[in-house]
């Protein structure tokens, strides 16, 4: 099943919106029924294509938020979480207009590099996830996959976010952490910390990575996802702390969304 996700040429297929869920004031999860979906790996993304009545069409990439389908659901379900960009061309449609029953054209699953799979040596290897803003989405798929297959690989998530209102999956992350089976979450607020918090606001730095992450000697698998500047800064800090460059996988989303 898992291998099917990376074999075969990709083609466009049409999913149907089965449900939507507001995650924050500006982010929405879209639950899609996708007949013929071949399955995916946690961390992969899809390309979404919108076509206007005049034939103009544009594409964007969105990370898959859900764990791979278990093979029971028919049709298979794929969830995307989309952050609305104020000047966006595609995200306002996906987060405000798209409704249950609407079709959506997608191509995927895409990418076999930025993925976590619970099989083989990865089954017990510690994992460090570092998220900047909506970069948490593909990392959430990894956390959900870990739970879905009953993996005991110890996970640590460091989640940098502007303020508490911008947190995606807040209650689910709390629940998964409280389950006490090996998922630890550290929040880093860049602008406003929760009321009563003694934690200073600011960016992720070497001290936070050292205290909330794994030491290099534990040889963790590291996944960093967020805006380009965030990802490159965190990857530099990790390499300087002694993590091997080959153990660090990154996914950046640029400021452009694709517009010239």
């Amino acid at each position, binding site marked *: 099943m898992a291998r099917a996700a*990376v*074999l*075969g*040429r*990709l*083609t466009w297929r049409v999913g149907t919106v089965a449900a939507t869920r507001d995650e924050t004031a500006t982010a929405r999860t879209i639950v899609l029924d996708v007949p013929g979906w071949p399955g995916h790996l946690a961390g992969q*993304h*899809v*390309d979404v294509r919108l076509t206007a009545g005049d034939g103009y069409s544009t*594409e964007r*990439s969105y990370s898959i938020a859900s764990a791979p389908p278990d093979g029971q659901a028919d049709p298979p379900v794929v969830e995307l979480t989309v952050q609305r960009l104020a000047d966006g061309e595609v995200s306002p449609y996906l987060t405000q207009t798209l409704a249950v029953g609407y079709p959506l054209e997608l*191509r*995927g699953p*895409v*990418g*076999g*590099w*930025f993925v976590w799979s619970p099989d083989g040596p990865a089954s017990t290897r510690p994992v460090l996830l570092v998220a900047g803003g909506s970069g948490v989405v593909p990392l959430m798929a990894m956390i959900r996959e870990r739970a879905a297959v009953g993996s005991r690989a110890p996970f640590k998530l460091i989640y940098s976010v502007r303020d508490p209102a911008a947190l995606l999956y807040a209650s689910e992350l709390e629940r998964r952490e409280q389950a006490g089976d090996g998922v630890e979450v550290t929040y880093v607020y860049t602008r406003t910390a929760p009321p009563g918090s003694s934690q200073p606001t600011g960016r992720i730095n070497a001290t936070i990575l050292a205290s909330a992450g794994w030491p290099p000697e534990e040889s963790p698998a590291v996944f960093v996802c967020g805006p*380009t*500047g965030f990802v490159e800064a965190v990857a530099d800090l990790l390499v300087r702390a002694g993590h091997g460059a080959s153990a660090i*996988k*990154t*996914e*950046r*989303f*640029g*400021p*452009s969304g*694709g517009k*010239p």
Partner: protein
Amino acid sequence: MSDYMDGNMLGGTLGELFSMDVTSAMLTCVSCGASWAVAQTRVYPHAPGMVAR
């Protein structure tokens, strides 16, 4: 402001051409010998075509 995007984004377009995942494929620079996965490259999508470096 940077105008490049992530090498992971090439997976969709190239995935229509190749029946394997290309983002894990290693690229080696003929000039300096540096070696990177496609996913690690910077992609400039607004050149004529897409340029990865």
